[in-house]
């Protein structure tokens, strides 16, 4: 009996020795990706596409699980990652909605409280007015806004990741207009079509979808859109702004470098698969992979831009 026990203990010890080196190998249990928005939206769509690619092509040795933690403009899910163990097993996917909440002081955390993992995609917007609008160009729109401050109505979401670039446009044009709380792009479309708003920032799929109802005035990307080569960018028209949702992955502060690298490698490989490329094209966005120092620099600039227009955002936040 005693011998048996010793034998068991010995084998247990041996087994644990065998496991020890493996323990250093990340990952050894499922990785949880928190999407702080509900199922069916753009954030969820990308996360699910990447998850499917990781599973299909065995890009991680463990399951990659997507968890929707919707609520309070993404802050409920973001907090779950903020409070998670920094071991690489809990990561977050969010766009600049996080910067908006921080810049406005709605939350006490900032982007510095997270480790950036990788940037996946970029989805740029354009300035749209209803087809029946009197404004044919961005200059006409802004000239009107300057003569009638506060009169134009923009369908948007107050304090959201599109309100900030709107504020940047207002501050560069040295005027202001009113932000009407409306919702996502399809609700903005309804508002424009119903005659309740004068302009809105719309995502690129609406160039095609809205071609009978909307008139695009300016592209809000760095370059002209492939889908609309004749549409000038705001930059060309003299406004140094862009409005692009950057979908980025984050880990809790102090997550080990190796773990971040493993996950970033898997996500980058997933983005390169045909399936994810197809999804990104379908959703009207583009792959825009950034990692490491480049990513940190991009985030720092992005966040600074947000903080820079907080006063304008607050001034146009209604009551």
């Amino acid at each position, binding site marked *: 009996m005693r011998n048996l026990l010793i034998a068991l203990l010995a084998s247990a010890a041996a087994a644990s020795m065998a496991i020890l080196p493996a323990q250093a190998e990340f990952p050894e249990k499922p990785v949880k990706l928190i999407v702080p928005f509900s199922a069916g939206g753009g954030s*969820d769509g990308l996360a*699910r*596409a990447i998850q499917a690619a990781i599973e299909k092509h065995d890009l991680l040795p463990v399951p990659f699980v997507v968890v929707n933690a919707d609520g309070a403009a993404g802050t409920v899910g973001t907090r779950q990652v903020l409070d998670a163990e920094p071991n690489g097993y809990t990561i977050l996917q969010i766009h600049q909605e996080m910067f908006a909440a921080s810049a406005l002081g709605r939350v006490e955390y900032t982007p510095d409280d997270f480790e950036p993992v990788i940037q996946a995609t970029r989805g740029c917007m354009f300035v749209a007015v209803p087809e029946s609008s009197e404004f044919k160009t961005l200059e006409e729109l802004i000239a009107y806004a300057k003569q009638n401050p506060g009169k134009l109505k923009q369908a948007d979401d107050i*304090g*959201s990741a599109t309100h900030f670039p709107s504020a940047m446009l207002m501050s560069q044009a040295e005027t202001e207009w009113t932000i009407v709380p409306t919702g996502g792009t399809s609700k903005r*479309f309804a508002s424009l079509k119903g005659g309740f708003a004068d302009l809105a920032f719309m995502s690129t799929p609406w160039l095609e979808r809205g071609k*009978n109802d909307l008139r695009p005035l300016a592209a809000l990307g760095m370059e002209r859109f492939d889908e609309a080569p004749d549409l000038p960018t705001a930059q060309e028209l003299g406004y140094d702004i862009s409005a692009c949702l950057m979908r980025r992955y984050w880990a809790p502060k102090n997550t080990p470098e190796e773990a971040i690298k493993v996950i970033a490698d898997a996500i980058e490989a997933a983005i390169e698969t045909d399936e994810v490329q197809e*999804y990104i094209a379908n959703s009207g966005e583009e792959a825009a992979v950034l990692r490491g120092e480049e990513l940190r620099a991009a985030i720092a600039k992005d966040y600074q831009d947000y903080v820079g227009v907080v006063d304008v955002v607050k001034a146009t936040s*209604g*009551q």
Partner: protein
Amino acid sequence: MSEVFAHILTGGLPWIVLGTAVGIFVGAIPGLSGAMVISLALPMTFFMSGEDALLLLVSMYIGATTGGLISATLMRMPGTEAAIMTTLDGYPMAAAGEPARALGLGVLASFVGSMIAWLILALLSPPLSLIAVRFGPYEIFAMTVVALSLIATISRGSLVNGLLAAVLGALVSLPGVDPITGTLRLTFGFHGLDNGFALLPVLLGALVLSQVLVDCGDAIRPMSATRGGSCVVMRMSDLARYAWTFLRSSLVGTWIGILPGVGGTTASIAAYSIEKAVSRTPERFGKGAAEGIIASEAANNSGTVGALVPLITLGIPGSVITAILLGAMVIHNLNPGPLLFAENPAIAYTIIGGVLVANVAMLAIMWLATPLLARLMYVNKAYLLPPIVVFCFIGAYSVSSRLFDAGVMLVFAALGYLMHKAKIPTGPFIIAYILTPMAEENLRSGLVIYDGSYLPLLTRPVCAIFLAVAVAFIVWALVSELRSFRKAAA
């Protein structure tokens, strides 16, 4: 187009039957919702064709709305949000020994409501959606005020208790993110409350778990099956007898469903209250009136189908589930939006045809299942309640993947139980909780659009009519309350 329908009836049929059955099942179980199962099914549809994916998801959507009536009728627990009003008359009728008839009426109403809405979807989608987008924030606000004023109708006979419950419900809806400015309010720095009291935990607590507590309080004893009740599930004569109720409720439901952001729940609240208001015997409502069951179920199903109108004509989702359907269309590169009918009519007709077949599948499944389900009424509740409690916890947890919401559910279970003991109705509580944020958001949005002016509420004709109706309802409820009070005193 014939190819589209041929596909629906061949390759697509299994998906429709599967989707409808799964939808009915999750709809019937409090705690599992249509939105939940559709978001779970969404990633699985990546491997299907876009058409089949839509057929599966749309069928789940239709099934889930119908399934809610089963638990609402047999256990007084709404299986889905949209079945709240069904509990009011479905359960009393079932408890009076006629569960099969109560279920049968609900199924028939669901089918008729869906079919009327389907006709409208197939024939009138484009013009109606154009009218719907002209419905701005003030119009929706005024309509919500009408629905809120109907609380007074529903709580006739105990107006004070009803209003008390409604005020409580309105207050509970306030904490969380301010719908207009996006800032946090009334959370007292406590991050658990950042998202406010979410719908599912409040609903599961106040209406389902509280009922579990009530059931546990009563000595658990299966209802005796010897009380009989007819075996007849559906009578065609009901169609003629309640023809106006079917028609009114389905039309009200379809229209409310079409409006963006207003769904099947509001539809059934409005239709139920209207039927009670026009009834010559309103006192039967709440005690097992057939019209009550019909109004609620015809309206919530027609609202469900109606919500597809703006989705397929303009790409505007009016509810959580239609937003997921929109996401599915994007993932499958079906490019939803105002051009869907013009550029991809096959997809639009797939949805329209799928709804029709799913309606028929729903009727067939429910018809076969009703006699079996009715016997649940006589099953010892000791076997039914524990799994329901488990599903409630799963449902509450799923909202934001955190345990806090399960705690919220328990608090509201206690509140619902206390309200039951104090004879304060939970109906007005939950109705006010659902409608108040809708009213607030649209009123304040309208104030931004009209530069702070309330005047358009009176000068825009639709707003003015709705508000006049609301005032009339309130005055009428007060007068009749006063009259019955005098009668009692005399």
